[in-house]
C-alpha cells in the first residue's frame, strides 16, 4: 500500500465518531494491519468506511458477521 493511502486510512481510523472504534482501530493498525495480505488490506479499507455503529456492532459481536471476507479481520479486531 502506498504511503499516502495508508496515512489516509490511518486518519480515518484514529478519528472516528465512537471512542470504542478509535481505540480498537488504532490498536489494530499498530499491531495487526501489517500482517494482512494486500487483498485483505483492501477489505479493511472497505470496512473502515462503514458507519461507526455498524462497525462497532460487528467488532463487539452484537451483530453477526455475514461477509466471509470480513470474518478473519473481525477476529483480529476482537482480540484484546
Amino acid at each position, binding site marked *: 500500500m502506498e*504511503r*499516502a493511502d495508508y*496515512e*489516509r486510512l*490511518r*486518519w*480515518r481510523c*484514529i*478519528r*472516528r*465518531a*465512537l*471512542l*470504542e472504534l*478509535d*481505540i*480498537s482501530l*488504532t490498536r489494530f493498525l499498530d499491531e495487526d494491519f501489517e500482517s494482512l495480505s494486500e487483498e485483505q488490506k483492501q477489505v479493511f479499507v472497505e470496512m473502515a468506511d462503514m*458507519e*461507526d*455503529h455498524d462497525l462497532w456492532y460487528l*467488532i*463487539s*459481536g*452484537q451483530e453477526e458477521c455475514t461477509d466471509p471476507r470480513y470474518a478473519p479481520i473481525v477476529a483480529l479486531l*476482537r482480540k*484484546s
Partner: protein
Amino acid sequence: MSIPVLKFDAVIVGAGGAGLRSAIQLSEAGLKTAVLSKVFPTRSHTVAAQGGVAASLGNSEEDHWHWHMYDTVKGSDWLGDQDAIEFMVRKANECVVELEHYGMPFDRTDNGKIYQRPFGGHMSNFGEKPVRRSCAAADRTGHAMLHAMYQRNVKANTQFFVEWMALDLIRDSEGHVLGVTAMEMETGQVVIFHTRATIFATGGAGRIFYSSTNAFINTGDGLGMAARAGIPLEDMEFWQFHPTGVAGAGVLITEGVRGEGGILRNANKERFMERYAPNAKDLASRDVVSRAMTTEINEGRGCGVNKDYVLLDITHLDPNTIMKRLPGIREIGLQFAGVDCIKEPLPVVPTCHYQMGGIPTHYSGRVVTPQNGDYNTIVPGFYAAGECACASVHGANRLGTNSLLDLLVFGKSAGDSAVEDLKAGKAHRELPKDAAEKSLARIAALDSRKGGANVHETRLAMQRTMQNHAGVFRFGDLLKSGVEKILEVEKAARELEIKDKSMAWNTARTEALEMENLIEVAKATMISAEARKESRGAHVRDDAPDTPEFPNGRNDAEWLKHTLFNPVDNSISYKPVNMQPLTVEPIALKTRSY
C-alpha cells in the same frame, strides 16, 4: 508565498450537530456557505449521543418549558445565564419538530407522537418528580440527527470541505473576524477562507484529560484558535465527569448498569457507596458517586497494582439479564478491560465527559468579549455554537440531553444571526497582508524543528497533569502545583518536533497542530480552576466544603460570576451571571440538592 483565497459569505468550522444546524440557516437563505470538517460530517462526535434530546413536548405526560428552565438553572448551580436558558428551553419544541420534518426517525408512541423517556435531573412542576422529556431515535439519536441535517444541507447546496483542518482565525486590526486559514489534509495545502461570517462549531476538548469518554477528535481546536486570536475563554474550570468510564480506556459504561443492580466496590470488596449515600447508594447522582470513588482511591482503597481504580460488580446478576438489559456492556468489558463482567467486576474510574465552558457567546450565537468595561462587546463577524461555545446555559453543570438541545437551538440562532448581519449588507473587508502568516509559521516550525518535544509524550504529560491536579475532586495545593506543571508542559507543546515532513496526509503534523490547541484548553482549565475558591456544580474543592454557611461549599456572595480566562497573559477576570430571564421572574438562588 502566495496562498489561495476562497471567498464565501460564511464559513462554518465543524460539521457536527451545531455546525450542520447553523449551515442550514445560511444556505437556505441563499448565502454561499462553506462547512469545514476534520472528518466526514456523519463521523462527528455527535454520533456518540444516545440518551436523547430534551424538549417539553408533553407527549407522554404534562410538561412545561418553565419547569425545564427551572431544572436547567438548578442543574447549572445557578451559574447559567437565565436569559439564555429561557431562550433555549422555549425554542426546544420548535427545534425538535423541525428535525422531525428534516426526516429524523424519532421513536414514537402508539398514537404516532414522539416518544419521550425520563432522564436524570429533568423534573415536573419545579423539581417535584421525574418527567419524561427526552426524545430519542433508538440508540442512534446523534447519528440519526446528523444524517437528517446533512441531507438537508446537501439539498440546500452547502459546500462541504471534508478532511480539512481549520488552523487559525483571521482578524483585522479592528478586531473583525474575516475567516480562517485551513489545511487540506490530502495535499497539505494551506488556504484562506475569506468570509463575512465565521461560525465555530468545533465540539469539545475532553482529550485534555487522561481518562475521557470523548473520542480522539475532541481536541478543542475552536478554543485553541479563539485563544490564539486573543479571545477569552469562559468558565473553563467546569467539566462534567461520568463516574463509570472503563479504567485506562475511558469508554463509557452507562448509568443503566447501576440501575440494573451494579455495585461499586473498593479493594476490600466493600460496597463503599453505603457510607457516602446511605439511601441512594450506587444510584446517587453522578457527582456524588464520582467524588466517593475518588476519595476511595485517594485514601488507598483503590484496586490494581497502582490502586488507581474501583470495581463495578454485576457478577451477582443473572447472565441473561446482563445480555438482555445491558446490551454491549459485556463486549466493552471484554474489549477494553479484558474482563468478562459476568464472571469478574469491571475496573472503572470517574471520567471526563463534557465541557461546560467555552467561547463566550450571547444567546444569539454572537461571540462576545470584554472591552472598555462592557463584558459583552460583540466580536464582529464571529459566532459560535455547540460544545465549543458557552452561552451560558449549562453553567457549572450540564443536564443530560440538554447538550443536543443546545446545539440545535444555538446552531440555529448563530445561523440566523449571521444571516441577519449579512443581509445588513456589509461587503468582505480587506484581508490583512499577513492573514496566513501565523499558520504558515507554525507549520514551518513543526517541519524544521530538530530536538523538539515528542507529540505523544507531551500529550500524555498534559493528560496526566490534568487528571491528577484538576480531576473530579480538587485540592488547593494540587491545583497550585498543577498550574506550574501545565505551564511546563506548555513550553514543550510550543516546541514540538515531528519526523514525517510529507505534504499529503501527514497525520503526525495534524496531531501536532491539535496538540497546540489542546494545551490552550488545558491551561485555561487549570488556571481558572485554581482561581475559583468555592465549590459549585462540577467544580468541587476539598478546601471549600459543605458547611451551614456555605451549603455544598458554594459561596454566592463572592463567586456567583463567570470566569474569563485571558489567553494573552494567562490572567483571570470575571463577569456577572445574568439572573434576569427574558419574560418570567428570575429563578431565585437555592441550595442545589436532589
